[in-house]
C-alpha cells in the first residue's frame, strides 16, 4: 500500500548505498580490467607492456586452474553443509531452556572472533600436528595411529578449520531467527501433540528458511575467497590438493607479484563467483519472496 510519496522516499534512501557501492565496485573493477591486459610484474614494474588477453590465456590454461575450480566448490560446499546443518542443531539446542544459556552462547560464537591466520596456526600446530599435536596424543592414548592430517587429508583438514570458524556465524543467525519464533505457536504445536520431527520440518524449518538463505549467501561469499587458512597450513599443497581459486589468485598477486596475472585471475574469479551466485539464487532465492 505504498503511496507515491513513500515510493520516492524509498528510492532516495537506497541511493546512498547504491552510489557508494557502485563506485566501490566500478573504480577497482575498471582498473583491474585495465591491469589485466598488461604484462605487469611488481618486481619488474618499469617494464610494463600491453599484452591484451594473454594473461587470461595463461590463467585459464594453467593446468591447476581446473583442479582449483573443483577444490573451490568442494571447500565451499562442504563448509556450507557442515555449518548449516551443524548450525541448526546447535541453534536448536541453544534455544532450549538450558542453564547458563548466555555463557554457552558466548562459547559457541567465540571461534568467530579469532582471526583466520591465528586459528589456522593453532589448528595446524597445537591440534593437528601428527607428532606433537593434541589430536595425535589423543589417538595414541586410544591406541590408534596418529592421523597425518595435512598429508593424507589435506582438504578435509582445511574444511574442518574453516567450518570451525563459520559454524558460530550460522548458529548465531539461526538462533536469532529461532528466538523470534512465536512462543504461542510453539505451545500450540506442543499441545496438539505434534511430534518433534514433523514439528521441526513443518513449522520451524519454514520459519528459519530466510535466515538459512542469509547464512548460505553470506558464507558463500566469504568462503569463495578463503586463502589465509590455506596459506598458513598447506600453502595450497601437497601438490595442488588444497589450491582454490582465491589461493591461485593470491599466489599470483602476493607470492609471485604478477599484477597482470592476478588481475586476470581476479576478473575470472568475479565471473565465477557471479555464476555461483546466480545458481544459488535459483535454488534458495525463492525464500526471499514473502
Amino acid at each position, binding site marked *: 500500500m505504498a503511496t507515491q510519496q513513500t515510493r520516492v522516499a524509498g528510492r532516495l534512501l537506497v541511493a546512498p548505498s547504491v552510489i557508494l557501492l557502485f563506485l566501490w565496485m566500478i573504480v577497482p573493477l575498471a582498473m583491474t580490467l585495465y591491469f589485466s591486459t598488461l604484462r605487469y*610484474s*611488481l*618486481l*619488474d*614494474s*618499469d617494464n610494463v607492456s600491453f599484452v591484451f588477453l*594473454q594473461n587470461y590465456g*595463461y590463467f585459464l590454461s594453467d*593446468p591447476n586452474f581446473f583442479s582449483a575450480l573443483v577444490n573451490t566448490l568442494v571447500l565451499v560446499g562442504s563448509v556450507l553443509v557442515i555449518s548449516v546443518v551443524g548450525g541448526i542443531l546447535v541453534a536448536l539446542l541453544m534455544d532450549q531452556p538450558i542453564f547458563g544459556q548466555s555463557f554457552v552462547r558466548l562459547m559457541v560464537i567465540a571461534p568467530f572472533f579469532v582471526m583466520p591466520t591465528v586459528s589456522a596456526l593453532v589448528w*595446524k*600446530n597445537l591440534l593437528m*600436528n*601428527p*607428532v*606433537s599435536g593434541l589430536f595425535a596424543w589423543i589417538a595414541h592414548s586410544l591406541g590408534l595411529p*596418529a592421523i*597425518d*592430517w*595435512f*598429508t*593424507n587429508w*589435506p582438504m578435509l583438514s582445511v574444511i574442518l578449520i574453516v567450518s570451525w570458524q563459520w559454524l558460530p556465524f550460522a548458529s548465531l543467525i539461526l538462533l536469532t531467527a529461532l528466538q523470534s519464533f512465536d512462543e504461542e505457536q510453539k505451545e500450540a504445536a506442543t499441545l496438539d501433540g505434534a511430534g518433534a520431527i514433523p514439528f521441526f520440518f513443518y513449522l520451524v524449518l519454514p520459519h528459519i528458511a530466510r535466515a538459512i538463505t542469509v547464512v548460505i549467501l553470506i558464507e558463500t561469499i566469504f568462503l569463495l575467497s578463503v586463502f589465509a587458512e590455506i*596459506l598458513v*597450513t*598447506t*600453502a*595450497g*599443497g*601437497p*601438490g*595442488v*590438493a588444497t*589450491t582454490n581459486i582465491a589461493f591461485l589468485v593470491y*599466489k*599470483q598477486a*602476493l*607470492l*609471485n*607479484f*604478477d599484477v597482470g596475472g592476478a588481475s586476470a585471475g581476479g576478473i575470472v574469479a568475479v565471473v565465477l563467483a557471479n555464476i555461483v551466485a546466480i545458481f544459488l539464487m535459483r535454488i534458495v532465492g525463492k525464500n526471499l519472496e514473502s
Partner: protein
Amino acid sequence: MKVLVKSLLGAVALAGLSLPAHAETTLTIPLVNNSDLIRMQKLSDDFTAKNPDIKINWVTLEENVLRQKLTTDIATKGGQFDVLTIGTYEVPIWGKKGWLLPLDKLGADYDVDDLLPAIRGGLSVDGKLYASPFYGESSMVMYRKDLMDKAGLKMPDAPTWDFIREAADKMTDKAGEVYGICLRGKAGWGENMAFLTATANSFGARWFDEKWEPQFNTPEWKKALDFYLSMMKADGPPGAAANGFNENLALFGAGKCGMWIDATVAASFVTDPKQSKVFDKVGFALAPDNGLGKRGNWLWAWSLAVPAGSQKTEAAQKFIAWATSKQYAALVASKEGWANVPPGTRTSLYNNPDYLKAAPFAKMTIDSINSADPLHPTVKPVPYTGVQFVAIPEFQGIANDVGQDFSGALAGTMTGDAALAAAQASTEAAMKKAGYIK
C-alpha cells in the same frame, strides 16, 4: 647539574654541525619478527639517545606479510618506509632497478672491508653496496650426538649425502617417534625450494643452463629429488610435506629428529634450554656434499637498505650504520652476552675469542657461509647468481609452482618423475612468457 651538562653538550653538538637545528625526523622502519631484529628494536634507545633528533616508528611483521608490504610499496612508490629490511634475494634485483640508494654515507667507523666477502658480494651491484647486512645465515647439519653414538656412527665435520642417508636409516625408530632426518617439505620458494635448490647444487644440478633453458629434465635433478624423496619416505617424520623451518625446529627441539639440515640460525635455538629439550646433545656439521665440489648449503642475510625517493636518507643511513656496526655487536655483547650478537656478517666477529667461546656453533656457521658462493653457486656454469634462489624477478613465482609439485611428490600425490616433468613444463612456460627463451 645534569641539565646544564646536557645543554652544554647540545650546544657543542650544534656548533659542531654548524647547521640550524633540524626538525625532528621520524623514521618508519619495518622489521622481520625474528629474534635478532627484535633485540635490535629493544636496544635502539642507544641510537635515539645518540641522535635525539631522530625518532623511530617500528613496524614488526612476519616475513611473508613484510615481503608483501615492502614489495607493493616500493614498486608503486608508496613511500611508506624509510629503511627496508630485505634479504639477499631482493637486494640485487631492487638495486639494479634503481629502487635502492647505494649506501655511501655509512661513516668512517663502518669498515666495509670487514664484511664477509660472500655476504658483501650478495648485497652489491656493480661493486656498490646497496644494503648493509644485519645478520647472515647459511645452512648446516644439526644432529643428536646421543643418537649418533647409539647408532654406532661418528659424524664427520663434512659429511657426504651417503653418510647422511646411512645415519638417518640407523637413527630412525618410528615406534619410539624418533625420525632420522627432518627436512623442509612445505611448498614455497623460501621453504622447500630453498633447501632443495641448495641440495640440488651439491648433486651437480642447476636451475637453468647458460641459455636460460630449465634443467629439471636432467639426471642430476632426478637424482637429487629421488634421493630426497626416498630418504624422507624411509626416515622422515609424518606430515613432512607441511613442515617448514618452525615445524622442524619444534620437532627437533622436542627430541623427535636425529638430524635436521636447516638455517644456521637454528643453532642458537636448539642449544637454548628454554626452547629445546635436547640443548646439551646437539652437534653440528657442514651441509653434505656428493664430492662434486659444491655443498648443499645456502646463503641468506637480512639486510637494511634505503629506498630511492626517500626524503630522510641521511637519518636512514645513520641508523643503518648504527645497527650494523661493530659497536652494535659490542653493545649486544655487553647487555645480553656474546652468544646473542647477530651472526654471519663480519670477519672481526669470528676473530673475537670472546665470541668463539660463547657460541659453540660459530665455527660451523662461518665455515658454512664461506663455503657458499652466490656468484658461482653450481657445478656447471649458470647465467644467474644466488645459491638457494635465482636472482631474477620471476623466480618467486616459478619456484612457488615447482615447490608445490615437489611438496606433492613428498606427500605421495604424484611421483617424483611426474613432479619433475610438471616443474620443467611450468618453468619453461614462465621463462618463455618472461622473454628469457624464445
